[in-house]
C-alpha cells in the first residue's frame, strides 16, 4: 500500500516540477517533497498508537477540531476572499478543515460501532447528522464548499455502512432534493457561477469557464501518448491555471497522455482496493468503518477532482489526493493511510 502511495506521490512531484519550472513557484516540488517526508512521519506516528485509543479520544479530537475551525473563522487570514488558513511559524499555514476529515472518519466509526443494533433509527441519524453538521457548517462559512461536501460524503458512506433503512434513505434524499433550491440562495456568488459554468462552460469563456475549457484542451491535446515531460503547451505557456495544484491531473494528462492516465488510475485503484481489503480483514467493526471511511474519502476526492479536469464535475477546490501541491492535504491523506495501517497492524489480534 505504501509503495503504491509513494509511486503516486512521485508522479505528482514530477508533474509539479514540470508545471512550475521557470515560474516564481519553481520551488514547489521541493516543498512537496518535504511535506511528503512529514506525511510519512505522521503516518508512522498514527500507525503506532492503537486506533482504539484514538477512538476513545474522539470527543477530545472533535472538540479540538471545532475549536480550531472557530479560530480560523475568528482569526484566520483572508486569502483570495476566504478564511481557510491559520498562519503558523515560518510562513507556513495550516488548514484545520483537513484535520476535520480525519476526525470525522474516526467520529463516524466510533458512533456506528457503539450502536447496539444493525439498523439505524431516526434518532441515530439525527445525532450523527448534527455531529457532522457542526464542523461542516463551520467549513462552509469559510467558505469552502468542496471540503464541506467531503464531510457530507463521509457521513453518507457511514450511514450506508451503519445499516440505514431504505425508507429513511429515501426520506433523507427527498429532504435533500427539497432543500437544494434553498441552499442555492446560501451559496456565494462565485460558487453559483461555478455550478452554472459546469452546466455550460461557454457561458463565460473568459471567467469561470476558462479553467474548465483550458483544462479540457490540455487533457485532449495530450492524446494517447502525451506530449512528454515539460512539453505540454497548455501547461508550459500557462494557459492552464493552477497547473500544479487543483489541475495537476490536467497537466499530467497533457504531458503523459491517456496511457499515463491509465497507469495513474491503475495505481489509485490498487490503493483503493488495498484499503478495502484492509476493511474486510479488520479486527472489528470500528476498524472496518475507519478503512471504508478513508477509502470513500479518497474515491470522492478522485471522482470530483479528476472529473472536473474533463468537465464532468463542477469546479471545486478539492485537491487530488497525493498529487496536488499542498501540505495540509498531503499530511491528511498520509494520516489517513496511517489509520488504515493501524487497523491492519491490529489484525493479528482477531
Amino acid at each position, binding site marked *: 500500500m505504501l509503495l503504491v502511495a509513494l509511486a503516486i506521490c512521485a508522479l505528482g512531484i514530477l508533474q509539479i516540477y514540470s508545471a512550475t519550472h521557470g515560474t516564481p513557484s519553481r520551488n514547489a516540488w521541493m516543498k512537496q517533497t518535504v511535506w511528503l517526508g512529514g506525511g510519512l512521519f505522521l503516518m508512522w506516528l498514527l500507525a503506532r498508537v492503537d486506533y482504539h485509543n484514538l477512538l476513545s479520544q474522539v470527543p477530545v479530537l472533535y472538540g479540538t477540531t471545532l475549536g480550531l475551525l472557530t479560530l480560523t473563522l475568528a482569526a484566520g487570514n483572508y486569502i483570495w476572499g476566504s478564511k481557510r488558513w491559520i498562519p503558523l511559524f515560518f510562513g507556513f499555514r495550516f488548514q484545520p478543515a483537513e484535520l476535520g476529515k480525519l476526525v470525522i472518519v474516526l467520529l463516524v466509526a466510533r458512533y456506528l460501532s457503539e450502536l447496539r443494533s444493525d439498523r439505524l433509527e431516526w434518532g441515530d441519524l439525527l445525532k450523527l447528522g448534527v455531529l457532522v453538521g457542526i464542523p461542516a457548517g463551520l467549513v462552509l462559512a469559510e467558505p469552502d464548499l468542496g471540503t464541506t461536501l467531503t464531510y457530507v460524503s463521509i457521513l453518507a458512506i457511514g450511514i450506508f*455502512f451503519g445499516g440505514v433503512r431504505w425508507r429513511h434513505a429515501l426520506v433523507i434524499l427527498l429532504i435533500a432534493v427539497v432543500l437544494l433550491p434553498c441552499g442555492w440562495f446560501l451559496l456565494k456568488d462565485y460558487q453559483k457561477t461555478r455550478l452554472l459554468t459546469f452546466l455550460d462552460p461557454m457561458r463565460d469563456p473568459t471567467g469561470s469557464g*476558462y479553467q474548465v475549457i483550458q483544462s479540457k484542451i490540455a487533457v485532449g491535446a495530450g*492524446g494517447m501518448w502525451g506530449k512528454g515531460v515539460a512539453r505540454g503547451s497548455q501547461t508550459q505557456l500557462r494557459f492552464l491555471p493552477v497547473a500544479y495544484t487543483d489541475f495537476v491531473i490536467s497537466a499530467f494528462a497533457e504531458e503523459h497522455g491517456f496511457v499515463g492516465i491509465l497507469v495513474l488510475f491503475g495505481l489509485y485503484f490498487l490503493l483503493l482496493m488495498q484499503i478495502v481489503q484492509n476493511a474486510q480483514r479488520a479486527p472489528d467493526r470500528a476498524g472496518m468503518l475507519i478503512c471504508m471511511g478513508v477509502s470513500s474519502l479518497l474515491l470522492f476526492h478522485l471522482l470530483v477532482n479528476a472529473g472536473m479536469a474533463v468537465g464532468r464535475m463542477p469546479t471545486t477546490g478539492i485537491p487530488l489526493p497525493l498529487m496536488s501541491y499542498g501540505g495540509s492535504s498531503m499530511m491528511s491523506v498520509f494520516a489517513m493511510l496511517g489509520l488504515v495501517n493501524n487497523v491492519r497492524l491490529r489484525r493479528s489480534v482477531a
Partner: protein
Amino acid sequence: MSSIPEDREHEAPKVSHFLRNDTYYGAVQIAIFQYVSVAVFVFLLAGYWDLQVRNESLYNTKALQNQIKSLPMPAPRGRILDREGRVIVDNHASYRLVLSRENLREEHVEPIARGLDLDADDLEALVRRFDRRPSYYTIPIKEELTAAELAFVEAHRNAQMFPEMELIKSQFRLYPQDGFASHLSGYVGEISDAELNSPEWASHSPGDLIGKMGVERYNNESLTGIDGQRQVRVDNRMNTREVLGVKPAVAGKDLRLTIDLDLQTVAELAMEGRKGAVVAIVPATGEVLAFVSTPGYDPNHFVGRIKPQEWKALTEDPHKPLFNRALQSQLAPGSTFKPIVALAALESGAIDENFSVHCNGGATFFGRYFKCHKKGGHGTVSLHKGLAQSCDVYFYNVGLRAGIDTIAKYAEMVGYGRKTGIDLPGEKEGVVPSSAWKIRTFREKWYEGETVSVAIGQGATTVTPLQMAYAYSGLVNKGVWMRPHVVDDGRKPQVDHTAVINPANLGKVLDGMCGVVNEGGTGAAARLPDIVLCGKTGSAQRASNDFLKTKQGEEEFKDDAWFVGFASRDNPEIVVAALFENGVHGNFAAPIVRDVVKAYYDKKSRQKQPAPAPNLAAWLTPGKPAPAAEPGTRPR
C-alpha cells in the same frame, strides 16, 4: 452476573467495551462499494478517453491555436451630479497602457519600464502580483499616456519588440480643481494589497481603481461599472484568427447628490483661505445642500497612483488637508451649546422662563472665579438676553441648576456623542460628558465645578460641524431629526429619531437665537435685510486659560469660531453650521452662514425665471474643459 467478570472486561484492551467484533457485518456494503468504485473509475476513464483518444486532433488544434489575447474594455465610472443634475465629478477619455500576460516575457519588463519612465522594481512587483490569476487578466501599468509615451508605445508594439503592450481606450476620472468639494467627492485610487485580500473587494484585481474616500468610497459599488472584454485568438505570428467574443462594458451608474452646486460654491468661496467646515442641511428632509471642509486637496492627483512626494506633502502638511473637518473634527462647541443647555434646564424644570441672574463680569463657584466674556458684565440677564448676549455667568447658573446629567441627556437627544449616520465614510462621534461617562473613561467621580465649563460648551464636550447642523435641524424641525444624507437615491427621507419637546420652551430658545442676530446680539454680522436668520455664535477655547497665557498670539491656539444658523424663524428651510478654526470669535463665522443662507433665498426668488447655467468650466482643470477632448494633451 457477578461483578468479577465485568471487572476483567475492563482490564481487557482499553475501550473495547463499546466495540463490536462482527467483522462480516459489512460484507454486502463493501461489495457494493467495490462495484461503485469500479463504476467511478470507468466513468472517469470514459471522460479521458473521450477527450484524449476520440477527440485528440480537435483539442490538439485548439491547443496549437491557443494564443488567446484578451483585451479589457474598461467601463466608465458613473458621474457624480448635484441635485439639479449638474456635473461635479466627470470622466474624460484617455489611453491606458496594459501588458497582456498571455505574451508577456519577463525580460521585457525592465526596458518597458525604462521607456515609460516607470520604476522597474515597482513594475516587476506589479507583474508578480498577477502570477496566480488566469492569463487573460491584463496588467494596467499606466493611465493617461502623454504624447511622448504614446509614441514610444506605437513604435515598440510589434511581435519583434514588445508584443505584450496594448493600448486601451479608457475613461479617466476628472475632479474639480483646487480641491473644490474634495472632502465630499473623495477620490479613486489604486486598490491596495490589504484591500485585495479582504472579502469586500474580493472581485477586484491588482491595478483596479476603487473609491477611497467620500462619496466615491461610500457608493463605490453603484458607481463602478462592469468591465467588458474582447477576446481574440491569435496564431503564433500574432495575427488575429478569430474574435472569440465581445462582452460589452456596462457603465457605472451616475450618482445624484442632494448637494446644490450653487450653495456649495458660495460656501467654498466663503471658506477660501480659512481652515474649517460648512454643513448646510434641509431640516425637513435631512438633505445636505453644502458640505465643505477646507483646506482641501486635489483628488486628481490620486487617480491612478499618487506620487510618493505628493502623498508625503499632503500627509505632512500642518493644516491637514486630508482631514475631513466637516465630519471628523471633534472640537468644543463653545457657546453654540448654550441653547441646548437652556432647553435642558427649561424642559427638566430646573429653571422657568422668568429665571434671571445678575452678571457683573464674573462669578465664583466652588471657590474658583469664572469670568464672563464681557468684562463689565451684562447686568440683569433674562433667558432671552442670556442667549442673545451669550452671557456666560447666566449659563454657569443655569448649568449648575440643571446638573451635568440633565445637560448630557439633552445633548444626546439632539444627536451629540454619536454618529449621525450620514452616507459618508469616516464619521466621528464627539464626546458628551456626564457623570457616567467620567466614571467609564477616567474611573473618577464628576465634580460639580466641571459642570460650570460644560454649561458654556467647554470642558470635555466635543462635536463635529455635521453634528451641529444635524442637532439644530432637529430642533427647528420641532423634535424630528431626519437622517442626514448627501446621495439623492429617490427614496423617501428617513426619520432618524424624534423627541417630545414642549413647544413653548423650544420657542423661547429659538427666539433667543433670533436675538443673537437681529437684536444686536453676538451674531449681528449674520443679519440679513429681508430674511429672519437666527443663530448662535460660539468661540471655543482650544485649551485651558492658564495654558493659553503661555501661548498668547500663536495662530494654532487661537479660539475656534463657530456659528450655527437657520432661516427663517417661522418657516425653517435651511440650517447651516460653520466652523472657522482659530477664527477667534463666533461673529467671524457668522458671515459664512449668512452668505450660504442668502444664496439659498436669492436662488429661491430667482427660481421663477430659469437660472443661467453656472460657469462650471472654471472649476475644471484648464486645458481639459470637456470630456470629449483628445487624450494625451493634458498638461502635467
